[in-house]
């Protein structure tokens, strides 16, 4: 990508009591891009996010925000970041509005109008003047999102933000993130266990396991796709596949062919020429869930990885 990254993790490492929780992480995050952060429980997502927000000090390496080191120029660097770490804890004894006022005062130039605007965006207008202790979990999440957006950050870090949101809320949230990424060029880094969510929302995913980044991939890339072809007679289809040197797996009513997208028309033409009756041809992308489980090896929580 030609653009300058907004956030760069350089060799980020965290050791606590001899345990290497995060091991030399390198990652660039770009404007306008939504990056999902995946990993099994205890993989180190929250720990990484805590270091990216200055809550924890890295043992080694650094976090750069627009080229500035978070450790060296904390105030300047963090002013561009909006954060939700795990549950957004608010001051329960104050109203949602007072909470926002409180955080607004900590930033330069957040006007009262901006507070009202954000409140409207997260759909809390009706309840904003009530005490946070009377809010439901989802309402607290919405308030959490509001405080993260107040100062129009260029970079948004969200640790499990959809936890507790209702389906409509999740959908709004997703649409909203896509919107600020596309329109304002905000870079979003979001960790979640909801893979279907990540799949719908993200342009790119980073997968962490045992404190190491094991994969970074762009979503919706169809380089290696599988097409399912349902046709009769199947024997003819197999012949064609062999002719075109396509690998295939035989299924009950059709074949799974490993074939790049560009070759699909050629295949169809050939099948038609051979007078095969085609009922369906459909791309078979592996779901993110399948890919994720494949890569991280199932649901086992890794043993505390000593090194």
């Amino acid at each position, binding site marked *: 990508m030609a653009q300058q990254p907004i956030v760069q993790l350089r060799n980020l490492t965290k050791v606590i009591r001899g345990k290497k929780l995060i091991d030399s992480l390198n990652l660039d995050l770009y404007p306008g891009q939504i990056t999902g952060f995946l990993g099994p429980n205890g993989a180190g997502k929250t720990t990484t996010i805590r270091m990216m927000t200055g809550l924890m000090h890295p043992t080694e390496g650094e976090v750069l925000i627009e080229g500035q080191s978070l450790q060296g120029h904390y105030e300047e660097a963090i002013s561009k970041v909006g954060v939700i770490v795990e549950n957004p804890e608010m001051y329960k004894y104050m109203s949602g509005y007072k909470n926002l006022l409180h955080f607004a005062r900590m*930033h330069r130039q957040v006007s009262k109008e901006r507070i009202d605007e954000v409140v409207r965006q997260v759909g809390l207008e009706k309840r904003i003047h009530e005490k946070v202790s009377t809010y439901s979990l989802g309402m607290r999440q919405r308030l959490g999102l509001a405080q993260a957006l107040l100062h129009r950050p260029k970079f948004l870090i969200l640790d499990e933000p959809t936890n507790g949101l209702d389906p409509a809320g999740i959908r709004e949230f997703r649409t909203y993130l896509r919107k600020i990424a596309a329109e304002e060029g905000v870079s979003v880094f979001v960790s979640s266990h909801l893979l279907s969510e990540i799949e719908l929302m993200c342009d790119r995913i980073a997968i962490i396991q045992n404190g190491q980044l094991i994969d970074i991939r762009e979503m919706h890339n169809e380089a290696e796709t599988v097409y399912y072809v349902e046709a009769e007679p199947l024997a003819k289809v197999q012949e064609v596949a062999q002719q075109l040197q396509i690998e295939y797996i035989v299924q009950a009513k059709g074949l799974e062919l490993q074939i790049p997208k560009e070759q699909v028309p050629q295949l169809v033409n050939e099948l038609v020429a051979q007078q095969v009756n085609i009922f369906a041809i459909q791309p078979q992308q592996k779901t993110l869930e399948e890919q994720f489980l494949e890569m991280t090896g199932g649901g086992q929580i890794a043993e505390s990885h000593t090194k």
Partner: protein
Amino acid sequence: MLNLIQNEWMKLWHQKATWAMLGILVVIIIAFSGLNKYYEERETRDWHTVEKEQIETYTQILAEEDAASNSYIQDEITISEYRLAHDIAPPNGMTVADFMDFGVDLITIVTLFAVIVGASIVSSEFSTGTIKMLLTRPASRAKILTSKLVTTFIYGLFMLAVNFALVWIVAFILFNGNTGTLLEVVNGQVQEVNVWKNLMEVSSLSAGNFIMSVLFAFLIGSVFRSSALAIGLTMFLSFMGGMVVMLLSKYSFAKYIWLAHTDLTQYANGGQHMLTGVTMPFSITVLAVYALIFLVISYWSFMKRDVTA
């Protein structure tokens, strides 16, 4: 910085405990003044007669008793004679100044309230998890801690102001009619007691205990992130500290323990420190050094440690 203090002040007054402490202070003052007014005993006879009677009684006692306990009684006789000679009436019932003295006693309670606030202003952010919301902002950790420390002291000063203002108002309403002059004998000379100067002196010397207790509670609260521990330990030391110093008084290092110096009021009215050879400048120096140590540890711990709340 002002914004941060404004924030802390807002959060403080949205908590019930803050209002409860204010309420308790007001109730104590009003209840105490009411009781005093109710049980107040006033002399109805003319004060000249009373003074004359007193001189007679004291002279009789003086004739019977041995010389050891005489100086007090001797002084009382001198004062009574002086009153009659110069026509200076004694105070009748409780005076405004007497009641202000009660306000000075209440500094202990106000100190306790400031300790409670100082102990929890940092630790509560950790126990509720709001600390991560607070620290991921363009304000350094040093600034945030400073705003909390300053707010604690502003709260303490505010409560002191409320205390003295209220005590004064109540005293003025209830006891203003009670006039009269307090006399004392200094070096054989009868002179007027400067009650207001004494009040001022004791109040300002109470600052030692006030500042040290708050700083200590703040230290424990921010290092151990537990308000219960901070309040408990501070209270324990302020009750037991004197005793500990007494037990250790035969060792020379005892005078380097800050607890030996927190009660500066022992120097009031020309008083002496309980350890021999210790002077007020020395006490203040020791306190200042400890105050600095407490602050350095608080800041260092708050700025360096990871936040996992």
